[in-house]
């Protein structure tokens, strides 16, 4: 009989080995597109972290736009602005919000709380929607009002006909809206409950509507990184819901999407797309966050596997039957960039290069060194599919020392003139990106 080294001793030796190993992330360039480089997963005593300190913007400082574009502040002094939405009359809605707050479950959670606070993610959200009106389109709003107040960690927002739907973390609320309104005072009506509960780990509920307005689509994140809070609390989570707009009846449209922080329809094909934040703590280059088309009934792997059939051994018991069904996403955005919003372009207002494709905001990493993300990118589309490498559109959210962070991009919208708006939840600002030479 062949002798093998006893497994317990090997396991203990590997603990010692882990403490000494280098854990720098590689070039994100290898992880863009349909076939990203995927290293072997690792286990850590202390997962690699690099947490930039949030310092905000000094007067006159702005992010950096790519050639031919300029950046100006549209609004400052907001309370953790996350989602942006442009109404048909050009008014801009800013959802000011943050997590409803969760209690620590494990010793680790105390440390995670400190990390978040340093990175500027711990700030209290306004739990309200602010309206900005810039009727003459000069980038200086003439009017700023509190549009809806006293919401509960709102995130997604969409107008269908004369009804404004707001996705609070626990329910979709419908408000009557008439063009030109600057404040909604009538109480909303609940359309449907959404998975929330005491833990509500990934709390954001991204939302969009189908072109005909009959259905709403809602992204619901998992209740953990990788099931460490038990499987019971994951029921109905890590999924994209379809909600009937008239009845409020809902069903799971697709599952296995760990944290689908943005959902939107591709305008040419009317195909639903999502950006999804993947799992942490198995390496600086695992797992790439992604952009993907969402198939009805599709399963995208979480928690059992990633990028198709790559099994995650942290999940027990495992489910080979589900792993076999897991769909490989369309387009990797590289690891830990934290894509939070996607916005399909509507023609070449900014630049001919941005005529057809999607803008994606990358909130930025803290569980990776060197840092990754902290920018707004553009991914070109051909025939309704993402192609090529991402093009940086707005950068400079990180300080030049790579240790401080001025802002972190979240929500995206186009204003009436076609300028790109970016919500920045550390700088508490809405940035407006426009062409330096007006296009005709």
């Amino acid at each position: 009989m062949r002798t093998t080294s006893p497994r317990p001793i090997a396991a203990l030796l590997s603990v010692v080995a882990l403490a000494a190993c280098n854990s720098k992330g590689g070039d994100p360039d290898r992880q863009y597109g349909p076939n990203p480089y995927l290293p072997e997963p690792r286990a850590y005593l202390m997962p690699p972290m690099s947490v930039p300190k949030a310092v905000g913007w000094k007067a006159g400082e702005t992010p950096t736009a790519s050639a031919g574009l300029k950046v100006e502040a549209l609004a400052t002094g907001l309370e953790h602005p996350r989602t942006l939405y442009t109404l048909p009359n050009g008014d801009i809605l800013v959802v000011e919000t943050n997590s409803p707050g969760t209690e620590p479950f494990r010793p680790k959670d105390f440390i995670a709380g400190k990390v978040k606070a340093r990175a500027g993610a711990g700030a209290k959200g306004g739990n309200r929607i602010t309206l900005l009106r810039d009727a003459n389109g000069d980038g200086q709003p003439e009017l700023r009002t509190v549009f809806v107040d006293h919401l509960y960690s709102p995130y997604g927002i969409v107008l269908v006909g004369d009804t404004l739907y707001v996705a609070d973390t626990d329910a979709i609320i419908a408000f009557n809206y008439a063009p030109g309104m600057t404040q909604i005072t009538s109480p909303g009506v609940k359309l449907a409950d959404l998975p929330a509960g005491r833990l509500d780990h990934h709390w954001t509920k991204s939302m969009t509507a189908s072109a005909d307005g009959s259905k709403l689509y809602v992204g619901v994140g998992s209740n953990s990184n990788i099931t460490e809070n038990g499987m019971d609390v994951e029921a109905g989570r890590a999924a994209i819901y379809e909600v009937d707009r008239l009845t409020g009846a809902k069903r799971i449209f697709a599952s296995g999407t760990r944290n689908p922080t943005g959902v939107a329809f591709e305008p040419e094909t009317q195909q639903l797309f999502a950006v999804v934040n993947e799992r942490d703590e198995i390496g600086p280059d695992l797992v790439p966050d992604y952009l993907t088309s969402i198939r009805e009934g599709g399963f995208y792997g979480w928690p059992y596997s990633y990028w198709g059939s790559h099994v995650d051994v942290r999940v027990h018991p495992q489910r080979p039957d589900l792993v076999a069904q897991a769909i490989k996403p369309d387009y990797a955005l590289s690891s830990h960039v934290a894509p939070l919003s996607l916005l399909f372009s509507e023609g070449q207002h900014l630049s001919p290069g941005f005529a057809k494709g999607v803008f994606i905001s990358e909130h930025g990493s803290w569980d990776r060194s060197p840092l990754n993300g902290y920018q707004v990118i553009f991914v070109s589309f051909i025939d309704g599919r993402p192609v090529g490498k991402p093009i940086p559109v707005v950068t400079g959210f990180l300080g030049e020392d790579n240790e401080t962070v001025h802002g972190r991009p979240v929500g995206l919208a186009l204003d009436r003139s076609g300028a790109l708006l970016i919500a920045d939840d550390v700088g508490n600002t809405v940035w407006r990106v426009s062409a330096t030479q007006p296009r005709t």
Partner: protein
Amino acid sequence: MRRRDEQLRGSIGHARPRPLLHRGFLAAGGVLLIAAFVTDYTYYATALWQWANFSAWLITAGLIVTFIAVILLLIDAATGRAGRLNTSSFILFAAAALLSLVNAFVHSRDAWASVVPQGILLSALSSVLLLIAGASGWSLAISRATETNK
């Protein structure tokens, strides 16, 4: 000198000798760390996440209480309560505490990987060391009273 005499008299007579302060905390810390092995095993057997949670808290609490015991041991030494160091116990406890410190980090991993395989191996190993040390009394030093009685 005078204190020594008093102590001697105290122990020879029926007055109570001054107890070692660190012993109770050492025993409590050791028990918490051993309990973490039990909860690790239960998690291994059931895959119910709350047991892994218990383990993480037990190890953290065990290390804190053991740390308090170390401070009290220094006070025992400084105030003349403690005599000679119980070397074998001290080595066993120190090794168990170091393994448990590493184990606290292993238990900060998520889900199954927080316990299997390294977490439960570390808690098993430190439990064995603690039980051997505990069998000879939960003490890192000989009480001076006992020492002078010899």
